[in-house]
């Protein structure tokens, strides 16, 4: 894959990073909702078994881990750049 061309829009990089941060903020909310869905399912009848419920929980869990790992890379890069900012490192 070729690296993306130089952005036309000057603040594009910053813009992208802010949206990544937004996604990182949203993620726990989505995770919490997904983890709470079984409560609704359990009320609806006797279809839920431990085996199927377990698979659901673990799949959601694995998905969250993968998405968090993907988001954490650009975010941690942003952290280190922020640290290089002289205003932030004043004693």
């Amino acid at each position, binding site marked *: 894959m070729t690296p993306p061309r130089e952005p036309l829009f000057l603040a594009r990089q910053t813009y992208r990073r802010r949206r990544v941060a937004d996604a990182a903020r949203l993620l726990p909310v989505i995770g919490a909702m997904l983890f*709470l869905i079984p409560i609704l399912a359990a009320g609806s009848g006797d279809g839920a*078994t*431990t085996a199927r419920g377990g698979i659901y*929980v673990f799949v959601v869990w694995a998905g969250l881990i993968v998405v968090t790992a993907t988001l*954490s890379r650009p975010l*941690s890069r942003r952290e280190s750049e922020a640290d290089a900012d002289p205003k932030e490192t004043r*004693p």
Partner: protein
Amino acid sequence: MVGFNALVLVCVAYVAILFGVAFGADKRAREGLPGTAWLRGPWVYTLSLSIYCTAWTFYGAVGYAARSGLEFVTIYLGPTLVLVGWWWVLRKLVRIGRAQRITSIADLISSRYGKSNLLGVIVTLLAVVGTTPYIALQLQSVTLSFSVFAADRQEGFELLDLNATALWIAAGLALFTILFGTRNLDANERHHGVVTAIAVEAVVKLLALLAVGIFVVWGVAGGPTEIARTIDASPISDWQMNGGRWASLTFLSAAAFLTLPRMFQVLVVENVDERQLATASWAFPLYLFLMSLFVVPIAVVGLDILPKGSNPDLFVLTVPLHFDQDGLAMLSFLGGFSSATSMVIVAAIALSTMVSNHIVMPIWLSLRSDGASMSGDVRYLLLISRRLSIGGVLLLGYLYYRYSGGGAALAAIGLISFSGVAQVLPALVGGIFWRGASRNGAAAGLIAGFAIWAYCLFLPSFGPEGVISDQIMAHGPWGLEWLRPQALFGIEGMDPLVHALFWSMVVNTSLFFIFSLVSFPNPLERLQGAQFVNVFEHSGATRGWTRGRAQAEDLMIMAQRIMGGGEAQALFEAEALAQGKESYLPDTTPGFIERLERELAGSVGGATAHAMVGQIVGGASVSVEDLMAVADETQQMLEYSSQLEVQSEELSRTARQLGEANKKLTQLSIQKDAFLSQISHELRTPMTSIRAFSEILRDGGMDEAAARKYSSIIHDEALRLTRLLDDLLDLSVLEAGHVTLHPQPDNLSDVLDRAVAATTSVGEGAGIEIRRNPVHEDIDIFTDTDRLAQVFINLIANAAKYCDADTPRLKIFVTKRAERLHVDFIDNGSGIPPESQAVIFEKFSRLSDQAKAGGAGLGLAICREIMDKLGGKVAYLPGQGGAAFRVTLPKAPLAAG
């Protein structure tokens, strides 16, 4: 079957390895050896978070699953959500923790709400009450796992005494924690040894559980499809979901993950880099994921295979033992052992820091009438109190284990303990996101939540024989039905845990908000509030102190007693250098006092540090400008004022340098004037006596004895003249730079020996007692040792001459720094007054009258010139309780020339 002796042997060997790992990591990190970067890396950090998985989760998760199916997983889902949402809360907590040098969760709450020690005490008590049963639980699980191995061994030895085992384990843990947890006083510094050992334990417990799981799935059941069939056939096949418990437990575990003292310790206090958090945000959920992957399979296989009535909490051990997998059982035992020990160690460190900073230090401080500028070593006291607290915490845990009788009552304590510490959550989250949160609100919420938790959950956990009788449980205290501990306000049918959690959190949060809304915070509280909430906008220091009447020397004395001589002197020196001053004492600017307070807070906690500095600085600590700076939120204003601030800082630094230079010049010109009269005086006095006595001799007419006496006076005076001229010559040669050095290898100890011998033999130095430490002095140096000895002789002779103590004593300390060597000469006299410290190195400056001194006042000037030539320096070291001079030598060998 594993022999009990073999088990003990493996256990001891494992502990020995952990000691070795901790010792090695500590040593490497302290000496800054290469290849220690990974100690600070994200992986060790992530693994250290695994102390969340205690023995309660290692053994108990399987038991939990065997009893209530999938519900166990909520204990891991909460922390997963917290870490997945690291960008919200954890990142802010870590940033605040570093900016404010937070030492514990109690310190965070206390610092946020105006460095209030009341809140520190409340949180500390809550943490101790909540954690003690949890430590007891760990002891119980380890002794239980021992008994699994011992139970099958009838022949050879008696069934072991469980209490004795628990006591031995507690003692061993105390020893480990004290050895590696109280190495450095600065609680904000990382405990590399402990953290690394815990990372190793994390790997062991993960491997152990995975190994048992893989064995169960592929070795016993015969693959994933088979295990699914076993699950469907097991008693827990139906997912009996209790929605309330599911949601509450997820919330509870998330809250506890943030507020448990031990979690706060590894998450925030031991964190050195925010990037560690980015990795941990997905790596630690992965760890939890792997830890819980095989829990249900192990539980169903255990239920299927083992006889009815066997303890499901021990399936992790008993299933491998059932199939005679001794190695696997041993590994699993070590996993459980690791989970228990790592939790106890970190919990003890965290609690001991809280107890000593928020309970012992304030009490001690208020008992002393002379306040913070006291005599005595605070470091020692702090270390002792921390060590005793560690012992005390473990002893409490052991006693709780002994007298609660173990058993099922203790097994339920895990969640009870979680909901106790979760009471800190409103004050914590409110404190970092809402500037309006106030001390009164936090205190009211904490106390109410704590009380409801104790009444509804903690006290009933002791059973009917405890504080809450059956009578009260059924009909409420004094027959008030609406006060029944498990059905407050008549709402019945809730699960007791959900009931207590619901009411305590609702009341806690409401009171927190209401009291925050109606109370008015004091200035310091508002400052701290702004600092915490806006930590990303301005992480600069709070200007908490106005320029007071603080004496730099008093501050230094206090700082040395808390941080230790080396660190305090380095801090003061660096600050003085930044201000453009060349001494060890910087000006006590508000910024400097703030920085100093923060450094101290790293050792003794925010509230205590504030109180101690306050005692020396005195007076109000928040100025109108500070409050305006906080109130004014316009970004441009802040930026503009910060630019102005930089400029004015620059200006005031230059002004300070100019002022100092000017003062020095004025003094020099006075000295130049004095020089002529001095030199003529110096020359004239001996000349006069020489002339007078030689006239007497010339006239003759005296006996032999008188003649000899007169000529010896003439000789002595001539010698004095020569010495004076020698000194002058020496100094002018040194100043002109025409001196030739003769560097040679030598031992510092030998040079000092020569200097001491030279001074004490003359007689004037005989009256002073010299204390040295030959071990520290044994350092090879390469420099002009004759010149160096000349400096030493001068300093020793000076001490002998001017030390005004009844029994004069001179201590000679040698300390090694990274690039330099310090030789300190400290006497026990009254020292040199601050106003004279700047001029003693000038020519002809003498502080006392000439008669006593008997020299021309050139000695220190020569010393300074020599040390300049040798690439080092000599300076006056204030705040040592007497006159003190520090000779600094570069470690690099001196080039010949």
